[in-house]
C-alpha cells in the first residue's frame, strides 16, 4: 500500500490500518463519516498500476503533476481578540497530576516569627559580644548560628515551603507569579528558602521600624524575581500593604495612554489606565484595606464620602481612569498617615525605568522614565528622597532577560557591590562612555550634588544556590514526581556544576526541562 502511495504521490494521511481496510470497498461504505475519503483513496491507489509503464510519455494536453495543498483543517472558531494573549499569560499554580509533598512547612506567621526571633537573639547576643552583625548584609554570623538554628528559623534553609492559600491569592493579584517560573509542575506553589531569602525576610522585619531600600541584582536565572516574590509573601504574612509593579516594561514602553500632569515642572505624565489597573490590583491583593477608613480629607475631582474604606477608594479609582492618579495619591497619603501598616513597594525589571521611556513629550522629545508620575513616585522612595512614614521597604529587582542596558545602573550597582565587599579599588566611570545618566545615579542614591541624605541603596547580589539548597530543591522535585532520579550527592554535584555553580534556573533547565 505504502509503495502505491509513493508512486501516485499521494500521502497516506489516513493510518495504515485504515488503508488496508480501504482496499475492500464494501467495508468502506459502511464507515459513515470517512466513506467518501476512503473511496477517493481506493481509486487513487488502483490507478498507478495501470498507467505505470508509460509514465514517461508526455501526451499533449495531459495534465501535469499538480499537487493541491490541502486547506488547513478548521478547528472551531478563530480565537477571540485577547484570547491568545490570555492563554499566553495564563498562570497555572496547581497540577493535580503532581504528587503531594508530605510534611511541607508553610510560609506562615510562625515561620516568619522564627526569623524575627533570630534577629532578636542576634541583637541581644551582639550586645553581649558573642555575635557579630554584619553591617552591609545584616547577616547573622555563622559561628553562633548552629546552636540556635532550630529556634531562629535557619533550619528551614534549603527546604521548600508552601505558600498559604490567602498569600497565593494575594500574590496572584499583584501578578508576582510569572509564566516562565514553572509553577505548573507542582501540586501547590512552594518557595525554596535560601540563605538570601531568610536574610531578606529579616531585613524586612527590621524595616518595620525603619526603611529598607534594596535592589536585587544577579545573573540570569539566579532567582531575582522569586526573591521579590518571597519578599512579597513575607510582607503579606506580616500584614503589610504590597504595591507591586510586575513588569516595569509595561509602564515605560508606551503601550498605555498617558497625559501630562498640570502644574508640574518638569512636566510629569500620568498613565490613567495603568494606574487604574494598579489600583484594582492593590485592592484585590490587600484584603486588609477593607477594614481601613479614610482618615484625611482630600480634594479629589469626584465627590467621595468621608468615611469610606480604602478598598472602596481604590475601587473608585479603578473604575475611572481619569481620576485614577489623584485617587492613587490620596490613597498613598492615607497609607502614609499615622497608624497604618508598613508598605512594600516593589518593581521588577529595574533597568526599564532607568532610561528614557518610549513616550513622547509634546515637543516630540522622549520622556525620561523618571518623568512618568508613577515611576517618579517609586523613584522618590527608592532614592530615599521621601520616607515611608510607617516603615516598609522599596524593593527593585533587576532583570536579565529582554532587559535594556542602562550603563549608569550597571556601573552604580557594580560600585555598590564592591563597596559592600570592601574592595580597595572601586570601578570608575568610563571616561569615553556618553550614555551615563545622572538621574539614574540619583535614583539609586548616589551621584554628586543631587544625592540624597539617605545614602545609596543596598544591593543584594544573587549568586547560584549552595549545594545544600540545590539538594533540597531537587529532593522537592523528586518528591513531587517531576524528577525521576535518585537525588544523591553525585547527582546534585553534577547538576550544580552544569548549572554554572548552582544557577537555579539552569538547574531546573537541566533537571526538569531537558529530560532526554
Amino acid at each position: 500500500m505504502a509503495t502505491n502511495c509513493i508512486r501516485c504521490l499521494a500521502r497516506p494521511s489516513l493510518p495504515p490500518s485504515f488503508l488496508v481496510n480501504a482496499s475492500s470497498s464494501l467495508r468502506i461504505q459502511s464507515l459513515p463519516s470517512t466513506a467518501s475519503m476512503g473511496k477517493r483513496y481506493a481509486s487513487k491507489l488502483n490507478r498507478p498500476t495501470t498507467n505505470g509503464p508509460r509514465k514517461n510519455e508526455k501526451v499533449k494536453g495531459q495534465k501535469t503533476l499538480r499537487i493541491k495543498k490541502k486547506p488547513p483543517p478548521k478547528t472551531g472558531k478563530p480565537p477571540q481578540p485577547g484570547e491568545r494573549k490570555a492563554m499566553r499569560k495564563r498562570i497555572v499554580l496547581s497540577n493535580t497530576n503532581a504528587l503531594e509533598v508530605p510534611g511541607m512547612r508553610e510560609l506562615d506567621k510562625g515561620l516568619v516569627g522564627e526569623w524575627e526571633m533570630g534577629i532578636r537573639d542576634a541583637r541581644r547576643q551582639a550586645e553581649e559580644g558573642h555575635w557579630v552583625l554584619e553591617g552591609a548584609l545584616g547577616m547573622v554570623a555563622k559561628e553562633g548560628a548552629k546552636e540556635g538554628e532550630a529556634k531562629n528559623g535557619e533550619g528551614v534553609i534549603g527546604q521548600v515551603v508552601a505558600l498559604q492559600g490567602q498569600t497565593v491569592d494575594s500574590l496572584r493579584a499583584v501578578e508576582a507569579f510569572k509564566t516562565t517560573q514553572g509553577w505548573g509542575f507542582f501540586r501547590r506553589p512552594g518557595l525554596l528558602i535560601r540563605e538570601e531569602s531568610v536574610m531578606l525576610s529579616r531585613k524586612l522585619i527590621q524595616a518595620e521600624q525603619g526603611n529598607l531600600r534594596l535592589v536585587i541584582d544577579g545573573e540570569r536565572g539566579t532567582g531575582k524575581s522569586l526573591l521579590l516574590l518571597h519578599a512579597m509573601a513575607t510582607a503579606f504574612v506580616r500584614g503589610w500593604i504590597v504595591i507591586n509593579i510586575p513588569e516595569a516594561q509595561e509602564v515605560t514602553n508606551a503601550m498605555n495612554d498617558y497625559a501630562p500632569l498640570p502644574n508640574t515642572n518638569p512636566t510629569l505624565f500620568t498613565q490613567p489606565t495603568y494606574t487604574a489597573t494598579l489600583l484594582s490590583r492593590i485592592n484585590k491583593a490587600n484584603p486588609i484595606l477593607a477594614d481601613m477608613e479614610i482618615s484625611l480629607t482630600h480634594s479629589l475631582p469626584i465627590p467621595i464620602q468621608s468615611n469610606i474604606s480604602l478598598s472602596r477608594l481604590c475601587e473608585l479609582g479603578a473604575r475611572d481612569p481619569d481620576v485614577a492618579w489623584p485617587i492613587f495619591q490620596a490613597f498613598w497619603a492615607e497609607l502614609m498617615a499615622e497608624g497604618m501598616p508598613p508598605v512594600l513597594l516593589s518593581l521588577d525589571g529595574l533597568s526599564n525605568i532607568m532610561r528614557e521611556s518610549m513616550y513622547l513629550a509634546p515637543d516630540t522629545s522622549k520622556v525620561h522614565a523618571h518623568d512618568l508620575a508613577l515611576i517618579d513616585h517609586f523613584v522618590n522612595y527608592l532614592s530615599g528622597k521621601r520616607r515611608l512614614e510607617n516603615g516598609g521597604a522599596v524593593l527593585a529587582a533587576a532583570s536579565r532577560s529582554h532587559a535594556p542596558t542602562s550603563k549608569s545602573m550597571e556601573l552604580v550597582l557594580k560600585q555598590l557591590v564592591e563597596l559592600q565587599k570592601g574592595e580597595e579599588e572601586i570601578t570608575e566611570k568610563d571616561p569615553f562612555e556618553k550614555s551615563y545618566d545622572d538621574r539614574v545615579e540619583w535614583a539609586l542614591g548616589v551621584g554628586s550634588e543631587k544625592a540624597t541624605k539617605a545614602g545609596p541603596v543596598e544591593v543584594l547580589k544573587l549568586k547560584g544556590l549552595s549545594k545544600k539548597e540545590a539538594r533540597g530543591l531537587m529532593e522537592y522535585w523528586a518528591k513531587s514526581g517531576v524528577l525521576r532520579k535518585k537525588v544523591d550527592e553525585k547527582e546534585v554535584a553534577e547538576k550544580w556544576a552544569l548549572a554554572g555553580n548552582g544557577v537555579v534556573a539552569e538547574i531546573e533547565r537541566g533537571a526538569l526541562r531537558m529530560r532526554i
Partner: protein
Amino acid sequence: MKVAWLPVSIREGLRCAYSPRPTVFNSPMRRCVLSTSSNQFSTSTRLRAGIAAPEIQFKEEGDGRDGEGKIFYARLLPESPSYFTAQPAFTDDLLALQDLVRKYSRLPVVKPSEAPRVAWRSLAEYRNMVGESVKASKYHKVVEVLRRLNLIHPSLIPHDVTKALNEYKRDVNPFQNVPKIIPVDEFGRACAIGRRKTSSAKVYVVEGNGEVLVNGKTLAEAFGRIHDRESAIWALKATDRIDKYNVFALTRGGGTTGQAEAVTLAVGKALLAHEPALKPALRRAGCITRDPRRVERKKPGHVKARKMPAWVKR
C-alpha cells in the same frame, strides 16, 4: 701481462668504465668516498655501488715517486669480495654487522624489554641509502642483527657497535618524543593545555568542590548549550570527580563546541597529573586523545571542500 703504463686512450676508457658517473673525474667527493670506503658506516649515503676496485694510481696523478716502481695489474680486482653478488652493498653491510656480532658475542646483554627502544630505518630508506633493490626479507635479516647488537648492555657497548647502530637508526627517533609530565605545583594546581578544531584551552585544575570558571564566567554563562557544558567537564564526570576538583579555564579561538571540547582534553590531562591511575578510564571516556579533525580546506573548482558546481549541459 704486466704493463708499466697504458696509452692515454685506454686509460680514459678504463676510468669511464669504472666510474658510476662518467662526468665526475677525480672530483674530491669521489676521492673522499673511495678513501673512506673501508669505513662503511661513516656516511649515510654511500656511492659505492658499481665500484669494483680502487682507482688506478697513474703516474701523472701520483706524486711521481712510487708510481714508477709499482706493479700495475692489467686485470682489475674488485675491491669487495661480494662484488659479484646481486646486492653487493647489502651483502657487505650484512657481513660487517654479522662480524660485529661475532666479535662481541661475549659481551653481556640485557633483556629485550630493557634494551633502548630504537626505530630502525625503513626498508625504503635503506634502499635509498644503498641504491640497490633489497628485498624486505633480506633487510629483515639486517634488522635482526641490529636488534641483537642493540641488546648489548648499554654501559659496555663498544664504540664501533654504536657507530654501526647509528648508521641504521632513523634520523628522528620517535621514541625520544615523550610527553612532558605535568607537575602539580605548590598551590596544588595542575595546568594543562587542550586543543580542538581551532580552539585552545589552558586549564588549571585544583582540588575543590566542583566550581568551574571558563574565562572568568560560570559554566552556564560561558556555554549556552547544556551539551557543551557537559562536554567541558566530561573528564570529571566520567571519573565521578565533579565535586572533587575546581576548574579554571582560559579558552581562545574557535566556537563554543571547539572551546568546550578543548576544555575536555585539557581537564583530562590536568586530572592525570593529580591521579595518574585514571588514565585507562579517561582514555575510555575519550579525554586523552587530541581530535585531529579540522575544517577541510576549500579547493579551487569546488564550491566547498568537496562539493562540485551543479552540472549544466552546455
